[in-house]
């Protein structure tokens, strides 16, 4: 049990790649939490995919013991959070478990869109915020400018900002001192009934479901019978522990402390993040306010390239969903692609991460169909249909109107690229809400349809601004618009997996781009192939893929037989990766690549 006054709980938040995980490394190392020889870069990013992509996907908690300059021993609970907008939910719920935030800003880059977004979350959570200017070892580092920016754009005092290099370790001691001095100690009552926040939960192959908790009041002990207040289920606590960062068992967690418990809970689904945990007997009266659950916003179909692998795919998806409540799935059949799943994700990066994991950890090759958002289709009879898949669009005669999700997007960009950014937003049916300047950077706020953003907006933004823009968004609600389903016909046959919803005014342009792209992606066949985009019965764009003209080995003598046969075997294997539509074969990547616009 730790004295409340000696506890500091905080999250580390920043724009993507500004150095949160590296800063966490240094704090862990400086305090001797992990032996230097066991240290590795971004220690907390433990998933393969995190290490490979160099990004944080899941928030991670570590308990650090720190002997401060005042001679007192402190317990610091640190939560390293992801920077990418898809995982913003991880950040906001992590913040609910702590009292303060280290706001890391790369001093060679400055304030970016997720810096802002994270500050808003922190303010909402009533956090004390300590600004940290990182990467001061870089030649491009400019602390004065960035401190000014923090004051101008964010409006928080940056005079006390700590200058740090998470790479060299400079400023780490100062950071630890600031944590102790600037951040508030948690409040709580040891004698009150148990009230703990269920911050996160995941499945561990050895220990079963692990629940991350923050105790607000009371004491949680091994052997206690605890109750989940939302559904009233009761579980005996098997283990209690903390992350240092490896799991370390302890006997109890008191107010202000963060740790984990296991309680022979079968499935992650039996736990709800944001739930309140109390004792079965003499429980607390009022639950905590809880969190809004994370909702998938982007949907796409995942189909096995080899139809025989459908059951393996089901298995892998079920396993991944066990640990990821924000990932949804249901079975889908497509005339073109056979059996698969319609899956929901938090965003495109989330989609890519799940897809990669299925392909690599479970060794199943996938066809991914075009991502879509959820449309609200209001029927003439007054009912409303949530449309996750354009292929399921009902007959238009029964449809009254269609609504689509909108977002509020914040983009920070250097002046010189502003024009391109505005054009991009305008092209994507955006409505400008705000445009302000902070030094040589512009901050643009746009109201945009999510379906225009979901797919390649971020890539396009990066390419038109040479990587200098940053982007963040929030869902704002639904709005009616003139949306239509665009069908693609290849060799006169509709290909359901290529159907998309588009705005009527953009249909021609989209259709043209799509058929042109498909023309590049489908290999030539022995015959010419018309590729058309149509709305209802009306063709809005058309291209013809001409027939292949030459494919023969000019010189073939006795010794070539084996070589040629190998080549043919390879080609035959390639052919198996195509999907057959009537007489036409479409390569698996075409389903997603066709939608990438180079406008």
């Amino acid at each position: 049990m730790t004295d409340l006054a000696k506890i500091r709980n905080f999250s580390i938040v920043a724009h993507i790649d500004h150095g949160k995980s590296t800063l966490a490394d240094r704090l862990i190392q400086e305090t001797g939490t992990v032996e230097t020889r066991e240290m590795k870069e971004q220690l907390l990013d433990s998933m393969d995919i995190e290490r490979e992509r160099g990004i944080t996907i899941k928030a991670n908690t570590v308990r650090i013991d720190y002997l401060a300059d005042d001679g007192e021993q402190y317990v610091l609970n640190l939560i390293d959070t992801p920077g990418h907008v898809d995982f913003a939910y991880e950040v906001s719920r992590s913040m609910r478990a702590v009292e303060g935030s280290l706001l890391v800003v790369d001093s060679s880059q400055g304030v970016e869109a997720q810096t802002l977004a994270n500050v808003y979350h922190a303010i909402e959570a009533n956090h004390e915020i300590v600004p940290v200017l990182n990467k001061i070892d870089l030649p491009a580092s400019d602390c004065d400018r960035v401190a000014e920016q923090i004051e101008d754009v964010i409006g928080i005092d940056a005079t006390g900002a700590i200058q740090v290099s998470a790479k060299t370790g400079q400023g780490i001691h100062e950071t630890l001192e600031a944590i102790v001095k600037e951040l508030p100690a948690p409040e709580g009552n040891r004698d009150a009934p148990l009230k703990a926040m269920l911050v996160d939960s995941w499945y561990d192959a050895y220990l079963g479901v692990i629940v991350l908790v923050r105790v607000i009041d009371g004491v949680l002990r091994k052997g206690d019978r605890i109750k989940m207040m939302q559904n009233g289920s009761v579980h005996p606590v098997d283990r209690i522990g903390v992350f240092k960062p490896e799991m370390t068992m302890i006997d109890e967690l008191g107010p202000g402390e963060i740790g984990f418990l296991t309680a022979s809970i079968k499935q992650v689904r039996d736990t709800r993040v944001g739930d309140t945990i109390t004792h079965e007997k003499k429980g607390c009266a009022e639950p905590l306010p809880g969190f809004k659950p994370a909702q998938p916003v982007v949907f796409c179909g995942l189909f096995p390239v080899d139809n025989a692998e459908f059951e393996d795919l089901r298995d892998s998806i079920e396993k991944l969903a066990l640990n990821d409540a924000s990932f949804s799935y249901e079975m889908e059949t497509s005339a073109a692609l056979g059996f698969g799943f319609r899956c929901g994700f938090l965003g495109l990066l989330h989609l890519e991460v799940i897809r990669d994991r299925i392909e690599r950890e479970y060794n199943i090759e996938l066809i991914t169909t075009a991502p879509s958002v959820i449309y609200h289709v209001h029927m003439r009879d007054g009912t409303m249909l949530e449309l996750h898949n354009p292929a399921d669009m009902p007959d238009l005669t029964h449809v009254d109107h269609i609504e689509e999700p909108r977002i509020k997007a914040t983009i920070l960009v250097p002046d010189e690229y502003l024009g391109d950014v505005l054009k991009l937003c305008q092209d994507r049916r955006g409505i400008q809400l705000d445009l302000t300047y902070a030094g040589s950077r512009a901050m643009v706020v746009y109201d945009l349809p999510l379906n225009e953003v979901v797919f390649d907006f971020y890539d396009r933004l990066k390419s038109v601004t040479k990587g200098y823009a940053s982007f963040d968004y929030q869902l704002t609600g639904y709005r009616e618009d003139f949306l239509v389903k665009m069908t693609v016909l290849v060799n006169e046959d509709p290909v359901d997996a290529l159907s998309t919803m588009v705005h009527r005014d953009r249909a021609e342009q989209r259709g043209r781009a799509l058929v042109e792209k498909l023309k590049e992606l489908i290999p030539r066949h022995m015959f010419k192939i018309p590729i058309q985009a149509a709305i209802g019965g009306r063709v809005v764009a058309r291209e013809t893929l001409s027939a292949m003209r030459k494919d023969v080995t000019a010189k073939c003598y006795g010794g070539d037989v084996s070589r040629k046969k190998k080549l043919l075997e390879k080609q035959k294997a390639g052919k198996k990766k195509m999907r057959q539509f009537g007489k036409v074969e479409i390569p698996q990547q075409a389903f997603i690549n066709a939608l990438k616009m180079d406008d």
Partner: protein
Amino acid sequence: MEDWQNGGFGFYVHWPFCMAKCPYCDFNSHVSKEIDQKQWRSAYLSEIDRVAEEIGPRTLNTIYFGGGTPSLMDPDLVAAIIERIRTHWPTANDFEVTLEANPTSIEAGRFQGYRDGGVSRISMGYQALNDEDLRRLGRMHTAKEGMEAFEIAKNAFDRVSFDLIYARQDQTLDAWRDELTRALELSIDHLSLYQLTIEQGTAFGDRYERGKLRGLPSEDLATDMFFVTQELCDKAGMSAYEVSNHAKLGSESRHNLVYWRYGDYAGIGPGAHGRITVNGQKIATETLRQPEAWLQAVEKSSNGETERDIVSKADQASEMLMMGLRLSEGVSLERFSALSGSKISSQTLENLSEMGMLLLDGDRLRATPQGRVILNALLRELLVDI
């Protein structure tokens, strides 16, 4: 009857040396200053004896000296090889011995010697009929020297063929039309007309990968050139009997027909391939590619081969189809089924015939000229389930 008898039996001898390496060529050819032809002679003879013991008696249809540049071989080396082969097998009535030659003056000087040693047919690598293009192809001869060699060859041999490479850098359709017309006027009865292929690992291949090989024809132009070739040769009575080979009726290369009709062929010399039927099994053979390594292996262990594979019946069927559809005479479907134990889907055959790619005439399956230029695509369709 064994399956190989549909194609006959040929003997291939590989000579792996050239004066210089051409930038487009990925054949097993090496440039070497010192070649002890005596040493090579005993190695070849030893290999002939080894192969003969395994194959046993049967009628031999052809011998082929390929390279590399076999016209660098001493005529008596060539004669000795022919003689040794003939001691092992009786020869067919239309027995033919071909030697590949480069048309330089030095080599032309040896032609009569080859003739005397038993070579009956010569295949000359002209590649182009103008000096500028010959230089770009890295050839050692001039157009004039080539013509002189051709005259000598015509006097020495009953049958002379030559090779041209077209679809070269910066070649126009008209330029090729002219060049081919001139070639056809030389009253010749066999021509090999190859489209330039950029092979990996060659000088052209490297340049191509670096984006530095300019002026190659587009697929469309190359295809047009192919069809112009068919048209001009048809008019001259030299229709294609194979994708790239043209001959007057009856003047086809017997040896190459053995390959394309999927007969048996023994292959000796560095990097030679073979397909021989032994005890009812088709065996794929291959020899060491490096001349020195091959020579040593033959001297030390009396065997220049590397690994061997038994070709399954299904693979034989695929190989037979791959080779046979190159020929205008096509293949026998019955033979295909007898080998593979299965049939090509009649739906596929019907579709491809309807598209004008295949001709089905009783038991014979042929590719049309339209089909032949996309033969690889046809084969993918035909063999997808085999």
